[in-house]
């Protein structure tokens, strides 16, 4: 009986999901303006400090084990909020780039498509980072390497500059 109930609930969830996605999609189609201004300024320096291995080592050597773990949890929480910010930014960029990729101008469409791949890769890495950070929140002693996500964000940033320059020419 429990299994049947679980199956019915998952089927009902699918129907609700379809209805929700249909609704949000129709709202999206009606929104003519895509706001680049929605992109929030990303605190790169603060992020770099938090993923800096030397700072972690300093804290570990100068704090008691208990205080270090508590501090590390707070640092992880801050990192998670930054990664969420990054995810939000990539979502806005993706919306803009999707629209730009349909442009009649071939140069603009090509540039948009190349930025699309970088933005998607960044978003994917941000999601991986979020998974790693969730584990680090439970086990604060784990040292997670987030240099890759930082490098990707820098790549997206550089490509965005390139795209802007190409379009403005």
């Amino acid at each position, binding site marked *: 009986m429990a*299994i049947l109930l679980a199956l019915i609930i998952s089927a*009902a*969830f699918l129907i609700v*999901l379809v209805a929700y996605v249909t609704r949000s999609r129709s709202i999206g189609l009606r929104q003519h303006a*895509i706001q680049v201004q929605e992109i929030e300024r990303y605190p790169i320096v603060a992020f770099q400090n938090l993923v800096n291995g030397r700072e972690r080592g300093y804290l570990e050597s100068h704090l008691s084990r208990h205080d270090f773990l508590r501090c590390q949890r707070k640092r992880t929480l801050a990192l998670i909020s930054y990664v969420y910010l990054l995810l939000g930014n990539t979502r806005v960029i993706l919306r803009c780039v999707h629209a730009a990729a349909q442009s009649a101008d071939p140069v603009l469409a090509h540039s948009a498509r190349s930025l699309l791949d970088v933005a998607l*890769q960044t978003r*994917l890495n941000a999601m991986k980072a979020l998974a790693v950070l969730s584990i680090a929140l439970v086990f604060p002693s784990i040292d997670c390497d987030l240099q890759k996500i930082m490098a990707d964000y820098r790549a997206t940033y550089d490509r965005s500059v390139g795209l*802007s320059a190409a*379009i403005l020419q």
Partner: protein
Amino acid sequence: MVSDTLLQHVLWWLCPVLQLAIAIAMLRRGLLRQLPLFFVYVVAHLCQFVVAYVAYRLSYTAYYYAYWTWLPFDALTTLLVIEELFRTVFAPYQAIRDLGVAIFRIATLTLCGIAIYSAYIAPGSNEQSQMVAGLIVADRSASFVEGGLLIVLFVSCALLGLEWKSYQFGIASGMGVLVAMGVIDSCVRSHLGKSTDSWFWLAQGVAFNAGMAVWLYYFVSVRTALHVNSEVRVERVYEWNCALEEILRGNSSGVNH
């Protein structure tokens, strides 16, 4: 098994009409090359209707075998259509194209495992025939795997911020309605037994026609509006660039500090 109520007849005859309309709409929109498996799925269902109708005219036994023999083929084609959806949705994104296939494979294996386990735990014993009980559970398990895959597809697209083409979204949502109602239907049938037979067939008919209606709607009204709405005008691009440049300048000054 075959009730003669008017509603059931209407639902039964509505199916091939909708399927034919979908096939024609696909051909007219030139979607055959993009979605060959879905086209095969629709045409196969159309053929199945003819076979089932002839069998129904012949005898109850003939219809019984025609219906249950069709189920594995139906499950296979549905799975192929979902795989085609995964492929076509992820196809425009070079960076994550392989990820779509990987997600599909992992999800299929996981869901098959869960479906086999649930079939073993809840085999549905309220049946006079052991064979019918087994077939209903198999049908339920197949629908569960298909439904799970569609959930994975919807969630993946939402998480990655992928854009659906109108007809892709139509197929996925229509399939979602069809499969979800199929799972609920099979669960109720396997729990309550033969007494709910007439409701079982009626619900199956409603589910199938609802799914078909969703597909037809999306194929007939392929939204050129999406492209019109999001078409980028030059002044809009300049506006975006100004905003982006401001953000980028802010970021680079932040890095340099």
